């Protein structure tokens, strides 16, 4: 039997103690196209990165073309002729196609880089691939598809035998995808192995020879694409066992319950189109969808964090919200997706963070902070949210992820909002802390707030929401009440694998 291009034995990877990959055993045939699929966070990108040297595994063995390897950098992987094409383009925009392709492997004549030599080599490679890029064009002026061609050329001139492509079609139109597939087929015919990381299942079935499905960092199975349908892959990705438990939800609000948030025709050019829904007092509305489907952009638009058109009304008010400050004053709270980038000021104290959004209420006539009031408010929040340690002067940076998330909740509870937008509220917190966050969300709904929760973890959405909105390509494609929101229904809507009813 031929030596496999890649063989993994019991490979595992942990990030900050959290398992991203566990006991992966996988063999990838040389000269094949092998797809890795899975939900967001299932570990497919991590696996691709381990193979291409961007990330190092910490358990098990990785064999590349029969040799055991543990790459410390993509550079080391390149020496084994393993290249990666990342989701984000990693070219130098202000330099030419030629310079980008040969960056780091310049062809030389008498010790100096030789443009004629490189140009000739580039032409030769381009004709082999059926590409037609002008070598002098600046990469920054090219379309995304052409930039990707530059990346592929880069891999080819390095004589890569194995190319890991992470979501290569994410930014491409249908024609461009067809072009990319032609390229992949050419590479395959020339004996190059392609690892194709994607969540577009129709594409996976079209281009790949075999597909490996990952779930929660484990390999569920590897199947020839001739023998498996996209729908069956979805089932494999989801699995059947849902061990997570959720607190009791308050009853769904009555039909005449007050509408606390009314969104009408919310749009943002190229990102969101015509989003309309209502959120009632006491309701938890889950939002599902793939990464890039516009979920985060939607809540940011509701919060007026980005430019948008359309109506956002809080509790029947006629306020036109233009800035986040307007949104805060109208009674909206936004728990952002990234705690550190847009949630907390991590080098400041717990108290300073807890009171930041609420300072207008804590201000004395001369502009000073009413410190005793601020301190007692901080202590109250620390108690009610069980933030540890209980010291309000503690710097937020030194808290655990779960406690940081509680501080972020506390900051917004202090403003006494009517509408609570939570974007991935349990990301980066451990299982125990997750349950506590579910309880807080359920408690908010019980207190009559409207809660909107985005989550990439489907069980979480299904377990916590009275109603589920599914987004795809910046639109709401399904609006499912709790009874109808099954995994299948949500996933099919999110992937667009079945015609769904738009409520």
């Amino acid at each position, binding site marked *: 039997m031929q030596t496999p291009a890649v063989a993994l034995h019991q490979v595992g990877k942990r990030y900050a103690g959290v398992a991203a990959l566990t006991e992966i055993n996988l063999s990838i045939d040389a000269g094949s196209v092998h797809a890795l699929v899975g939900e967001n966070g299932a570990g497919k990108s991590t696996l691709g990165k381990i193979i291409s040297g961007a990330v190092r595994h910490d358990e098990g063995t990785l064999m590349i073309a029969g040799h055991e390897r543990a790459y410390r950098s993509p550079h080391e992987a390149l020496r084994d002729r393993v290249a990666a094409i990342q989701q984000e383009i990693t070219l130098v925009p202000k330099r030419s196609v030629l310079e980008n392709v040969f960056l780091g492997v310049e062809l030389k004549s008498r010790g100096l880089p030789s443009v004629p030599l490189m140009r000739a080599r580039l032409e030769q490679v381009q004709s082999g691939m059926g590409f037609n890029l002008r070598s002098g064009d600046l990469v920054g002026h090219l379309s995304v598809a052409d930039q990707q061609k530059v990346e592929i050329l880069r891999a080819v001139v390095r004589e890569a035998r194995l190319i890991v492509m992470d979501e290569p079609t994410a930014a491409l139109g249908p024609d461009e995808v067809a072009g990319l597939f032609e390229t992949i087929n050419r590479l395959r015919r020339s004996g190059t192995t392609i690892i194709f990381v994607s969540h577009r299942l129709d594409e996976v079935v079209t281009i790949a020879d075999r597909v490996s499905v990952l779930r929660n960092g484990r390999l569920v199975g590897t199947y020839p694409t001739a023998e498996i349908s996209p729908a069956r892959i979805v089932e494999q990705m989801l699995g059947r066992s849902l061990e997570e438990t959720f607190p009791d939800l308050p009853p769904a609000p009555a039909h005449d319950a007050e509408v606390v948030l009314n969104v009408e025709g919310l749009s943002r050019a190229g990102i969101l189109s015509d989003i309309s829904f209502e959120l009632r007092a006491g309701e938890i509305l889950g939002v599902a969808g793939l990464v890039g489907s516009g979920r985060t952009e939607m809540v940011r638009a509701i919060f007026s964090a980005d430019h948008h058109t359309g109506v956002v009304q809080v509790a029947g008010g006629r306020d036109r919200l233009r800035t986040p400050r307007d949104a805060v004053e109208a009674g909206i709270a936004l728990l952002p997706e990234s705690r550190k980038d847009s949630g*907390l*000021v991590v080098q400041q104290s717990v108290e300073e963070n807890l009171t930041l959004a609420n300072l207008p209420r804590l201000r004395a006539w001369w502009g000073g902070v009413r410190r005793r009031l601020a301190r007692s408010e901080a202590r109250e929040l620390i108690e009610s949210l069980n933030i540890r340690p209980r010291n309000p002067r503690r710097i937020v940076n030194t808290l655990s992820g779960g406690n940081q998330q509680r501080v972020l909740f506390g900051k917004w509870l202090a403003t006494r909002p009517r509408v609570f937008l939570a974007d991935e509220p349990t990301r980066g917190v451990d299982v125990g802390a997750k*349950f506590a966050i579910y309880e807080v969300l359920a408690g908010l709904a019980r207190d009559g707030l409207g809660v909107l929760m985005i989550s990439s973890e489907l069980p979480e959405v299904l377990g916590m929401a009275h109603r589920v909105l599914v987004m795809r390509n910046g639109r709401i494609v399904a609006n499912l009440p709790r009874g109808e929101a099954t995994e299948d229904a949500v996933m099919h809507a999110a992937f667009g694998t079945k015609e769904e009813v738009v409520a």
Partner: protein
Amino acid sequence: MSGGTTTVETELAAPRRRWLGINVLRDYGIVIAFMALFITLSIASDAFLTTTNLLNILNQNAPLAIIACGGTLVIIAGGFDLSVGAIFALSGVIAAKLANSVDPVFGLAIGLFVGLGCGIANGLIVAYVRVNPFIATLATGYVFRGIATLITSAFLVSVTNTDFTIIGQYQFAGVDIAIWIFAIVALILTVVLARTAFGRYIYAVGGNAEAARLSGVRVNIVRAATFAISGMCAALAGLIAASKDATGNAQAGLGFELTAIAAIVVGGTSIAGGEGAIWRSVLGILLIALIGNGFNLLNIDPFYQSLVQGLIILIAVGVDVWARASRDRA
């Protein structure tokens, strides 16, 4: 949030002990350095620890210290103000001109407003036009000094009316008015930073502008306001200096912006924004001043002074970067 979740935090919550040393050095290095130098000079020179010498140091450095106090707000908010030296000159020149043509007190008042206007212009350009503050204030600095030069045709503007010298040459309760002004400015800005909502916003904007914006903080206004305050402080400093010499000089304050920034950084205020304090910048200015004074009193070759100051700034910034990197790793 209740029950069942109390165990996991402990191991993650404690900051790593082994970085304690570097963080203490970063937080209190300026105090240690200042005290060490102060004690050394007290022992080494009889002339150092005298009321006259100490008040002299304060009086001479009051204008720079005022500039550094205003600049501290800008840097904590994540900005940078390189135009303060030019504002210093422009306000002095305008005050001197108006003192001769209208009235000394009127001139001083207008000089202050000119500084405020310059600062607001900086703030608008940085916060709303979104020009990088380094470039923006470098450019406006040229403009402001250019205006000062045009107004004076590059001549010194002498003021004969002695009312003009009130804030530069007079004393109150045995202490120079300039020192009183500096003390009041430092006190007010300390209160603003440490006690007011605006002060909290300054720290939040410098620490994480996006988080501040999403918390309802009007980030642009806060940023612009720090530049306005910095401009006003620079003008006040320029007025004191002009008053001292009874002269407006378009070439005054050259390089003051760099000395002020050096003092702020040496004091331990982070150039990355989000952290710092007024007292730090005051100690920073005094440390630099003591080095100069020490060179004088001890008759050391003044050629070494620049070298020593440069090394001290490098050490201060190095410690800041190092402490930050080690904390991010932890």
